[in-house]
């Protein structure tokens, strides 16, 4: 177990290195000169020259990577060319927003996914199984930006229940913050709910066929207790570990959800940065996301280990 852990920890560094090289390289390949894109409508040659110098745009690729790497190792991820703010500041600013959105989406997904999954497993191959399946699949089958726009039109404009867009910080007004998060969280959580439903269903089926549950049934316990207390509890661990791995998916979904609902989080930051060739921002945000994803992966593996003795050693 210990050696496994060490091996995994050791693998993090080269992976992150590859991530940074991958994204850095990809961005440099993007056609378009950030200095021109950033220079303003008038394309003043002085400003362009100044920006090129400031961001080392005329130096060869490995040199530029070197500058970035040196800064990164010192905790300086560079500066956004567009807003002229340090990338680390931007990350600190926007991270809580996306985290809140992702967290709420995850909650929505867990509620919908797990209940649908349990229902599907218990009433397997019946109409309910089919309905639960389609219900959860609906989330996966609809483009989330599309769902978002429909929801805005229905719930904001027609019914006036929720605000159409924007974000209010929870420290400022928790009620408004949550009201503004309901629709985006639902939109974002839908796709995840489908995946969770499937995981729950298969995990439950496995557990329900196990000796442990058969014993509980033989003991004469009420079926509901058997399902909820014994089966589900055991099924939850693999479900949760698999859920952690979906973080990347959530972020992908967040990109579009934030665009539609105008939520100033990571997703929006990154899309704007790619389109504006704001290299440092893309680099910093992707690296940060990758780190979190890798750490989550590691935690999930550890949890899985803890549960599944067969895999140890």
């Amino acid at each position, binding site marked *: 177990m210990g050696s496994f852990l060490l091996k995994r920890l050791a693998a993090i560094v080269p992976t992150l290195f*590859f991530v940074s090289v991958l994204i850095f390289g990809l961005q440099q390949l993007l056609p378009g000169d950030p200095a021109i894109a950033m220079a303003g409508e008038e394309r003043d040659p002085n400003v362009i020259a100044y920006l090129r110098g400031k961001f080392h745009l005329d130096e060869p690729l490995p040199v530029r990577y070197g500058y970035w790497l040196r800064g990164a190792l010192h905790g300086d991820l560079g500066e956004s060319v567009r807003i002229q703010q340090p990338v680390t500041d931007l990350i600190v600013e926007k991270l809580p927003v996306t985290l809140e959105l992702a967290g709420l989406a995850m909650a929505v997904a867990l509620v919908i996914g797990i209940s649908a999954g349990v229902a599907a497993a218990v009433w397997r191959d019946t109409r309910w199984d089919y309905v639960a399946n389609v219900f959860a699949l609906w989330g996966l089958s609809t483009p989330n930006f599309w769902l978002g726009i*429909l929801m805005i039109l229905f719930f904001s404009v027609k019914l006036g229940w929720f605000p159409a867009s924007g974000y209010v910080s929870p420290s400022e007004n928790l009620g408004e913050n949550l009201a503004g998060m309901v629709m985006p969280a639902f939109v974002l959580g839908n796709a995840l709910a489908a995946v969770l439903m499937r995981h729950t269903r298969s995990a439950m089926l496995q557990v329900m066929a196990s000796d442990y549950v058969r014993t509980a049934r033989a003991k004469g316990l009420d079926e509901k207790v058997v399902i909820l207390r014994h089966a589900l509890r055991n099924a939850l661990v693999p479900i949760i570990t698999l859920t952690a791995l979906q973080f990347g998916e959530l972020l992908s979904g967040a990109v579009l959800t934030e665009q539609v609902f105008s939520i100033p989080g990571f997703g929006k930051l990154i899309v704007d940065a790619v389109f504006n060739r704001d290299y440092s921002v893309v680099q910093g945000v992707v690296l940060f996301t990758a780190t979190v*994803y890798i750490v989550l992966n590691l935690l999930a593996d550890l949890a899985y280990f803890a549960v599944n003795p067969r895999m140890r050693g």
Partner: protein
Amino acid sequence: MAATLVATDLPRELTPGQRALRRLWRRRGAMVGLAVIVFFVAIALAAPWISPHDPLATSWSAVRKAPTAEHVFGTDEIGRDVLSRVIWGARASLLAGVISVTISLLVGVPVGLTAGYVGGWTDMLISRVTDAMLACPFLILAIALAAFLGPSLTNAMVAIGIAATPIFVRLTRAQVLAVKVEDYVEAARAVGNPPLRIALRHIFPNIVAPLIVQATLAIAAAIIAEASLSFLGLGQQPPAPSWGSMLNTAKNYVENAPWMAIWPGLSIFLLVLSFNLLGDGLRDALDPRHG
């Protein structure tokens, strides 16, 4: 004389493949999904003949008209028939789904096979790169790639395909690792078969099942990814129709011309749902533990 039993009287042994197919056939959801997919493929193929109008024909006088007998789904922002564009758009969406996943398979499976079978430094290198790609959010990678290649349907397909490759690499590798230690592989190796032969004849057929399942589900995801890229302006370019780009335009007119969005949105939904149902059914059919 006692009648002799003839071989044809005995119940036939079904092959695993045939058993799986029969299980699949029994799953209603998957069959419905398959039927819908076949329907869309049919209309995509038959587009030139069944489309009531030219999907590119504009008409200044018929801008954003509600559905009528002549334009059953209404017209769009520059007077084109929505029904015709939905029919022709099926081609783009199906292509986007199938070709991206084909790219992922063609690149991902051999790489995964190599990593799993060869092991060692090769495996380590491939795994690190795959992990790196998987650590980046899928859509971000796709956006960056599409931006790099330039906005077009082809480039979007390539971008999605490349971004989805690591999933297949990882899946193949995991399956290979599991199968590698099985007896029949050990036996094949002991007999002295060359690695390539072992990989293709012994390992590959036994890992195909989860790959098929994943591929089907990946097609569903790819169709949505294309719609997402089009939403950002990076997919199918005008005037050629694709459901994703139709939604992108329609979002500005949802209140005064909802038909522009309803039909392509519904089509994406049905097609993607069908692929998801089929994929689920395949998974259940090919892996009895789940069925």
